[in-house]
């Protein structure tokens, strides 16, 4: 079943009256449970596309349906609810709250989802355990390594069991070993938990963790292909 349907999507930025097209004529569909990489060089519009798909930005023309409903039909409260319950975000810069413990960071989405405070610790601890950071629960985010920070971000993204996880260059700020580990968790989320994953990257080897790669160049889809030889991070990691 399609969770994301994009048709003739366009995005134009206006700066001091000058129109800069960022996305043109973008159409595709992503089904639930899919793992899709969006690739392209910097400035190609891939981040803009992710922001629109993640309800963080609005498109200019065209149609975007998420979970069967057109974006413009969502109210502000519904958008906040969708971001909270149905989407999870992993950013390149981690975006953890400073001077805040791992546990509190992971609990953050639960705060906005009406989960009873007595349940929050339990859910957050489970998410932290799933990324292998149980020994770091009460550390402040600044005390963690880059790879650990990103794993906290993944735990935060999955704590509300979202349908779709958006990952924007999740390995961009990491060394290759930490990057591999992060990709392992992301892949595991897709295969074992059935989360839909949309991954933005400019590295081919990272993109190949997905089942499908959409190439973007100058705001247009250049190709949309199935990955024949998927890269298995776990296999690599375990070797």
């Amino acid at each position, binding site marked *: 079943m399609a969770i994301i349907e994009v048709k003739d999507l366009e995005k134009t930025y206006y700066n001091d009256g000058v129109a800069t097209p960022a996305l043109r004529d973008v159409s595709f569909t992503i089904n639930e449970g899919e793992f899709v990489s969006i690739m392209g060089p910097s400035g190609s519009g891939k981040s803009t596309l992710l922001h629109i798909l993640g309800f963080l930005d609005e498109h200019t023309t065209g149609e975007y349906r998420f979970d069967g409903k057109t974006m413009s039909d969502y109210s502000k409260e519904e958008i906040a609810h969708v971001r909270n319950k149905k989407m999870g975000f992993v950013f390149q810069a981690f*975006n953890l709250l400073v001077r805040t413990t791992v546990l509190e960071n992971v609990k953050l989405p639960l705060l906005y989802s009406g989960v009873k405070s007595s349940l929050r610790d339990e859910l957050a601890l489970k998410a932290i355990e799933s990324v292998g950071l149980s020994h770091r629960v009460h550390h402040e985010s600044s005390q963690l390594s880059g790879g650990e920070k990103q794993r906290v971000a993944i735990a935060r993204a999955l704590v509300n069991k979202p349908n779709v996880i958006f990952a924007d260059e999740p390995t961009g700020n990491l060394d290759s070993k930490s990057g591999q580990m992060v990709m392992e968790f992301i892949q595991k989320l897709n295969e074992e938990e059935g989360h839909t994953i949309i991954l933005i990257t400019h590295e081919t080897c990272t993109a190949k963790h997905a089942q499908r790669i959409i190439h973007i160049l100058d705001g247009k889809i250049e190709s949309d292909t199935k990955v024949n030889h998927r890269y298995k991070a776990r296999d690599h990691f375990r070797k």
Partner: protein
Amino acid sequence: MTIQDSFQIALAGLQTNKSRSGLTILGIVIGITAIILVMSVGQGAEDLILNQVRGLGSQTIIVEPGREPSGPSSFAELFTDSLKQKDVDALLNPSNVQGLQDLTPAVMQVVPVTFENETIRTNVIGASDLIAKILDIFPREGAFFTDDDIRQKASVAVIGSEVKNKLFGPSDALGEKIKVKGRTFRIVGILPPKGQVALFDADDMVVVPYTTAQQYLAGINYFNAIMIRAESEDIVPRVVRDIELTLRETHGIDDTDKDDFHVTTQADAAERVKTITGILSVLLVSVAAISLVVGGIGIMNIMLVSVSERTREIGLRKALGATEKDIMTQFLLEAVMLTALGGIVGIILGAAFSFLASLILSRVLALGWEFTFPIFAAVLGLGVAGLVGLVFGLYPARQASLKSPMEALRYE
């Protein structure tokens, strides 16, 4: 999100910038301190004056000529000659005024009083011996003059303790002769120290028969006041009404607006004191309130800086599912908690300063000053401080809530 969560988030936000939070609330602290101080000292002053007014006794009624002064410009109307002996006679008639216990006319003058080479200026009050009962002050030596003295316009005087000390020092004064406005008076009584009683400093006065004062000292045929004591406090309003009706009849007045006298009771006087101190308090509190506005603008300024600094945090919270309302609540609560904290500190400081002030006033000025902590002002202060946070936090909080999550996440 529960309100408890909101409080926790706001508190965490404030804690990350402790020294800035502290400096930000300084304006509020000063404002609330000033308000508490002004209200506490104002209350103390009011109590002090009210205590003196109460010294008048709740049964005492004072009739004065002229209209009730409605402002400083109309004080001249006090100096009229509408109260005469026939009024006194009419008031003493029980069929006119019921429940009247004691009455004395009063003639008041400030004149030189001399004993041998010593001269002082003091209040000379012409009254009947009943003034002792009305003011509740009885001679410690000798006695008050009698009705005979009044009838005969005798030159006899009862002196206050201060007058005795100034003129005679430690030596005996009873039976001595003093000169009042050039006329010789024999001292028949000396009053004990009593301090301020109603309108008079009982220590610094000389009481003579009112007939004598009228004829020989003032040269007038009217009275400056008539002092009356009702039988009990309960009937004061009725006695006042009887007095007014009687005087209107003797003066031939049928329109109450044209009264040429006015009647004051302790309740009236207390009311007037409260009005005056109330006006003063409002005035001073308004000045203090200006500092609250300045403090509020400071809060708004810092909140705007904070919102801009925390753009990324706001973006992240929104990306994780915070609604505009959640963000708004967070920043608004931060502002309100800041100002409320400022309010609490201000209340404590204000109480401390007013306690200090009361110590100074009672020790140094030796007034019967009592420290009062105005609970009302404290509650008001806290409320106002919170309100300042709410009002001046609204704009920054709104700015925060309107940030687009994408813009906010991009912000470096």
